């Protein structure tokens, strides 16, 4: 009887294994939405643009759902499959490794520094959207490889309690204030290697010191002095905000819009914007090899409408590249803060070299 039972279980396990394998195949295929039926119901409303697009999105979770929901309302004939990964570097790598058989039609979100190299490598499809006429030239690539649709300003987050007790409540008015020894071991910085923000911070210093070779030398000297006060270079920008929310560290240069979002959740933190700061241009681009070009172009064109701009401001506190979109309440306007003369093309083209220079300067 004991043997029988053991045997029964063994047979059962065999079956269980087989079922699991079948479920694995079946589960995965049933989980994928059926594009044909979705497209069929959509065409019934007779929208001009139809198709299914796969979108690699580096936008926030909360933004994704509403933003693409609104797009689908505007273009009911288009089915959007969003692949959400709020890490532009990983999405960039994915697009590179997939170039033999591209799986994305659209790459949206992340600063233009992540889109520009892909364009140079011939992995993007140029498209000058009709609505791009409303966008200033400094916010878009001339041949239409990528289009800038939002802006983000670099600010400074500080933990209220610890700032008051340990730094005398003095928020930095310039970046040089961060060199004060009172900040020693109390600052964190998004990693210049793995985050767009960390690099924009270094580039901002270069432009602050006048750019060129002199600017570079002075900026590196600044970064080296700052290194003495930095406790950690955090691998993601949001990760750095969490550390300040919790008071693990006192302050961190980071994105103003994200700092505002954190503050609105009731965290004991505050935003300040030191003078001579930099900003990012968030981009959208079409991946070469797309089989739904019309739908992809529709999304790019829609992203730079006033409607999309207003929605994104509401969802993410970011600014818009359109002048007719008002910034979020409490958030700084690009024209109101003192910005450095940020040469985006230079910053993009010299990114690898500058980061390596920084690495050897601080010894990381």
């Amino acid at each position, binding site marked *: 009887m*004991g043997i029988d*039972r*053991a045997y029964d*279980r063994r047979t*059962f*396990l065999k079956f269980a*294994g087989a079922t*699991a*394998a079948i*479920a*694995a*195949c079946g*589960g*995965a295929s049933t*989980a*994928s*939405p059926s594009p044909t039926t979705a497209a069929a119901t959509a065409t019934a409303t007779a929208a001009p643009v139809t198709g299914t697009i*796969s979108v690699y999105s580096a936008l*926030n*979770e909360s933004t994704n759902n509403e933003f693409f929901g609104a797009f689908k309302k505007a273009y009911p004939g288009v089915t959007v*499959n*969003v*692949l959400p990964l*709020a*890490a532009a*570097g*990983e999405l960039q*790598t*994915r697009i590179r*490794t*997939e170039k*033999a*058989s591209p*799986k994305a039609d659209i790459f949206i979100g992340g600063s233009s520094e992540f889109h520009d*190299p892909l364009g140079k490598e011939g992995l993007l499809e140029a498209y000058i959207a009709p609505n791009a006429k409303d966008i200033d030239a400094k916010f878009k690539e001339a041949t239409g490889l990528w289009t800038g649709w939002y802006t983000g300003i670099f600010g400074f987050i500080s933990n209220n309690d*610890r700032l008051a007790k340990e730094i005398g409540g003095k928020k930095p008015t310039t970046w040089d204030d961060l060199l004060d020894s009172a900040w020693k071991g109390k600052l964190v910085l998004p*990693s*210049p*290697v*793995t985050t767009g923000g960390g*690099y924009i911070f270094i580039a901002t210093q270069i432009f602050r010191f006048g750019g060129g070779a002199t600017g570079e030398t002075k900026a590196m000297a600044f970064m080296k002095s700052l290194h003495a006060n*930095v*406790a*950690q*270079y955090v*691998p*993601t920008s*949001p*990760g750095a905000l*969490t550390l300040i*929310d*919790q008071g*693990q560290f006192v302050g961190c240069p980071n994105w103003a819009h994200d700092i505002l*979002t954190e503050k609105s*959740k*009731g*965290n004991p933190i505050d935003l300040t914007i030191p003078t001579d700061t930099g900003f990012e241009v968030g981009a959208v681009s079409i991946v070469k090899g797309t089989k739904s070009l019309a739908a992809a172009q529709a999304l790019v064109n829609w992203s730079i409408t006033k409607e999309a701009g207003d929605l994104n401001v509401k969802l993410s506190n970011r600014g818009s590249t359109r002048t007719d979109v008002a910034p979020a309440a409490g958030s700084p306007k690009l024209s109101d803060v003192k910005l450095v003369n940020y040469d985006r093309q230079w910053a993009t083209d010299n990114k*690898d070299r500058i980061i*390596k220079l920084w690495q050897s300067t601080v010894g*990381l």
Partner: protein
Amino acid sequence: MRSLQREPGLLLALLAVIVLVGIFIVYPQVRVIATPGTGYIDFLTGGSWVKATLNSLQVMALSTTSAVILGFVFAYAMVYTPMPWKPFFRLVGILPLLSPPFVVAAAYVILFGPRGLITYGIFGQTISVFGLSGIWGVQTIAFFPFAYQLIADVLSRSDARLEQAARNLGAGPWHVFRTVTLPLSRPGLGAAILTTAIYVLEDFGNPALIGGTFTVLPVLAYGQLSGFGDVQGATAISTLLLALALALYFAKIRLDGGRSFVTVSGRASSMPRPPVPAALTWSCFVACLLLSGLILLVYGSLLVSALTLNFPTNFTFTTKHFEYITSGTNGTALQNTLVFGLAAAAFSAAFAILAGWLVQRVAFRGARVLDLLLIMPAAIPGLFFGIGYATAFNEPWLDWLDRGVLIIIAMIFWNIPVGYQAAVAGLRQIDKSMDEAATSLGASSLRGFRDILLPMLGGSLRVGFVTTFVRAVTTLSVVIFLFTPASTVATIRIYQLVNDLNFGAATAFTVADIGMAIAALSVIAVLARGRVALGAARA
């Protein structure tokens, strides 16, 4: 060579294993290494790897030592002592394996950071978890379960009669432990040290999050890839990691020598183990209790976070995080995680045992190479394993291949090493005369394997299944370049939520993921109960 020519089935099995290993372990790596560019030279001349390598080696030595010691104590206590609460400890001993990246390291920061709830909140200390000591501590807890599983498997199979004999001849408990128990557990110890060391070397999440300015190789590689888009430079680092793992592997071979560790030479003994002094039992109990307390503290904080508005600043109770994670596509992610994990674990464990048997028992040229290839995946950072698959299998003519299936295949082969190590360690304890008895009575080698050895290797099978399953449901790096909207998994969602600064929902997802994994493991344990070998290894 005894039967390859005579047994077509055996030859077929061997060829199948070699072909699969070739396609799914070797080929993707070759594709990654063959990426054109000048990255290798730039990287080597850049010199940033020297410091990172030294850092990696330092951390490896520290964390492996402490993790293996903890693992041994835990395993010894579970197998040898009659201490109470064993089912509880068994469960807690698996928890650290169920650590989706980022969230658990974040929990350590919340508890033990400069303003940690424990370090600062209770003890008023501002000592920091960031840096070398932090990595050391966190990795010790994170990786001791691997050592525990492998050592417990070997200890539970060692023959009690040898120890009884030694005791009867007058040796004291300590003397028996030192001269009988410890030497006999050497295959398991060796496997545990090797596996733990390689996993520590390859660990990315913990050093990235709490490393401070202390950089190790995987962190450097990730930066190279994510920051510079430099696949070549990143691969160079990955290759360096492989070389280090290779060195460890050869060191282990040397240490093992050609010794025999056979302890199962006939009928499994029903003799009880010699009694352990009560003082030892209770010290083991206290040690396990302390360790479990620490683990429960960390995982408990995840549960608290999942059920509060904004941990650790606002402790108001809420269920909104759990409502959020059961909405939308999140349910699909959990379901995929379970299906992928179970499928990968079943295939991986079975494949590991078969491969282990072929390498260990069937003499053929190149067995050593196959052995090495089967351990290699442990040393390949998940990121590169994923990139290898994304590069090698993202061809237009392969577009029909479902991504979920590809992810399962990646998980199977990435997780082979532990199950394989367990199988080899197990086989080395079983005397060859056992299966030879079967073959000389006319059974084929395969039949001897299936009917004689497999039932005795239940423990090894279980180790392979459990580790593959838990690693499959907690890996982010392997899937990050492979997942599609339809084949998204829990870790991807958790990573997204962490980056979205929604720590509450991220922890709720983590709790759901861990809960689901434990439930699945419990169901399997219940189904498997009653099977002699599995029972034995359950200590």
